[in-house]
């Protein structure tokens, strides 16, 4: 019983448990950070608590699986490129499609709710989540759908720590996306979004097209959710790909959002990595019998409760100014 994979057959003695925990936590934290960031961008720009973020994740990941494997579009027309490049082209197309769907959903279901109570809008997204997730599940169907990622099962073994190629790709992509978003907020469009986040009416009075800002925010949110969905659906996370349960990952990212503060993008990143590392730590060091099964899964929420008791608006959130 030998594998063709030479890397995997290496001895694993000497893996430093602490270092491995941090690597696992960071890799998972990156997924949470991507989700939390999209969530916060949507909230900041449009004042919508998006409970449909899970549905966007599932939909985005499904579109990636469909474009990258079943449709092979536009890769099938780009045969002169190496396979990895074809795959990347497919994925980017799929993510753009996901972003477009995000824009349409906002335009149709949430634009009529502009100016309504935050709570009512949040519940609209709950309804949206149910509807979109059900339809996506109908598309996904019976079997999980592999993403066809090029990283395979390859692992870099440094002796004291092991990192899958996909995890390296994931951390690189996350950092690049974070940097791009930081740059984006310095651009003209980004400034418009920040102005809208500050005060929608005043922004509009300044000549900012608030509607377009809303669309951009949802496009970015759906795009990031799709990216998170990809990295959640590859080795070593869920090697089988996208299935009907993929959407539930978003519920694990909610604590990250709250820990960082609902309206803080750096907060979302910090929260995402904090939750990821906290879960990995609980997994490695809290394997007590009496804790039963699934304790690491609620560590994020427990952390969130502790943070909220100390800072009711999260670590970096803006306190709401209460007036009579």
């Amino acid at each position, binding site marked *: 019983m030998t594998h063709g994979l030479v890397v995997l057959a290496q001895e694993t003695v000497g893996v430093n448990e602490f270092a491995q925990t941090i690597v696992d936590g960071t890799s998972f934290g990156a997924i949470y950070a991507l989700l939390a960031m999209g969530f916060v961008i949507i909230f900041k720009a449009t004042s919508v608590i998006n409970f449909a973020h899970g549905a966007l994740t599932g939909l985005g990941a499904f579109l990636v699986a469909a474009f990258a494997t079943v449709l092979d579009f536009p890769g099938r027309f780009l045969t002169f490129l190496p396979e990895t490049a074809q795959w990347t082209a497919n994925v980017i197309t799929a993510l753009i499609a996901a972003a477009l769907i995000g824009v349409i959903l906002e335009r*149709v279901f949430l634009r*009529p709710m502009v100016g309504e109570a935050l709570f009512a809008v949040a519940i609209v997204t709950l309804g949206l989540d149910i509807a979109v997730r059900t339809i996506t599940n109908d598309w996904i169907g019976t079997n999980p759908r592999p993403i066809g*990622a090029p990283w395979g099962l390859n692992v870099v073994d440094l002796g004291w720590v*092991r990192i899958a190629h996909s995890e390296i790709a994931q951390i690189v992509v996350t950092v690049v996306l974070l940097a791009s978003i930081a740059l984006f907020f310095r651009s003209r469009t980004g400034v418009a979004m920040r102005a809208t986040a500050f005060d929608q009416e005043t922004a509009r009075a300044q000549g900012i097209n608030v509607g377009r800002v809303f669309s951009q925010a949802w496009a970015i949110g759906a795009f990031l959710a799709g990216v998170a969905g990809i990295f959640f659906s590859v*080795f070593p996370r869920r*090697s089988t790909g996208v*299935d009907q349960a993929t959407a539930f*990952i978003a519920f694990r990212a909610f604590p990250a959002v709250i820990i960082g503060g609902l309206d803080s993008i750096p907060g979302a990143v910090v929260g995402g990595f904090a939750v990821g590392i906290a879960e990995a730590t*609980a997994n490695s060091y809290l394997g007590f019998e009496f804790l039963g099964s699934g304790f690491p899964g609620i560590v994020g929420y427990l952390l969130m409760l502790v943070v909220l008791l100390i800072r009711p608006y999260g670590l970096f959130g803006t306190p709401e100014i209460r007036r009579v």
Partner: protein
Amino acid sequence: MRTKSKWLTILLVLGLVLAACGDGGADETTTTASGGEEPTTTASGGDEPTTTAGEEPMEIATDVGVDLDAGTITIGLLSDLSGPFAPLVQIINSGHEIYWADVNANGGINGLQVNLEVRDTGFVVDTHVQLYEELKAQVVAFGHSTGSPHTVAINPQLQADGILAIPLTWYSGWSDPAINANLVPHGVPYCIESMNMIEYLTLQNPDAATIAIASNPGDYGEDSNAGARLAADALGLEIVYDGTGLINAADEATLAEVASGIAGSSADLVWVTSSATPFGAIYGQALAAGFTGALWSGSGPTWNPALVAPDSPLAEPLANDFYISAPYAPWAAESEGNQFVRDLLAEHAPDAPPLDYYAEGVIEAMIMHQALLTAYEAGDLTQAGVLAAAKGLESVSFNGLAPDETYVGEPNDRLQRAQFISRPDPAGLAAGTSTGSTLIETGYTSPIAEAYEFTEACFSLG
């Protein structure tokens, strides 16, 4: 502005719903069946009696679910069509649908057409009970009842009402006469399955000394791992990691926990009782942690062909490591029963994809078919009559689709112990010649399972 948005909303709603059906919208086909009727179809499907045309119709007692004037028999299916098992149960229901379509096209049950009343329980116990109450006044028997706690919840009602149900779970308690007065189980119970498979793994690697086990919570995982512990004990295997009940498919952290537990145990054999996605994650993460060289196997639902799909990174290592416990023969197997399923699908749903799970629906339908025929011959198509008929079935043959069943005799004698075993077949799946697995054993029974004295369920549902 506002009105426009509202109209847009309505349009999009319509669009969404339309889009949801778009995947099948294009492929409407002509309704005429290709070629002539295949006369062998019914022959291989089990004994189809000739219709008693011309004869004086005999007296048939009926109460619920059978309408002699309209010529219909109604069977209920309590299916999970929107819960965690929806992906599988949908296909199983297709199996029922194509089977009965075929029976009906060939004269039905002595001229009576069989209709299905399908209800979606969503895998919620209260919905299950609610839908049972709805269907009990419409159907003669239940073609399946999805889920163990769910079936336990309706069991007192089944007994009070005297209705037959086929449990769609392989809980070992269904073979226990204390519970199963109204149930006809089929296939190898979870705990016997793990005994068979673990012993089979030791045959493949006689040097194996240690085993790691992990499972979902509930009767499924507990029952299976109860058998695994018995097998490990009998085989002298040391259980170096026990993650019974730890796996929760919706909770990523539990998967990482189990994967690191298995990888850290350096076991020679691994037995996982879960479903495909969490299994894939656990297997992948164990590989990533450098855990290789072990033989893996798992309870039936742990396997899914997507694990070895062409785009799956796990295809190659799984093909080396994994032994599939198959409750029924895979799609492409050569038996008469498999040919029958393939013919059924070709005739009644030519566009449906080839999948293994149709077989489960067909098997359930075949048991029900036998029960209905026997009840008809006894002149009693009441709910109680069908129940009595099913409980008296001496032999139900699936023509190689699954091991034959009997429902008479001592529980220890009639307990199903014969096991089908397959190996992953990524090449066949990529080439379209199989559904990702090839059958290697039909009817393997391990000595441990053979010697196991069945008196009650391996794991009590309380």
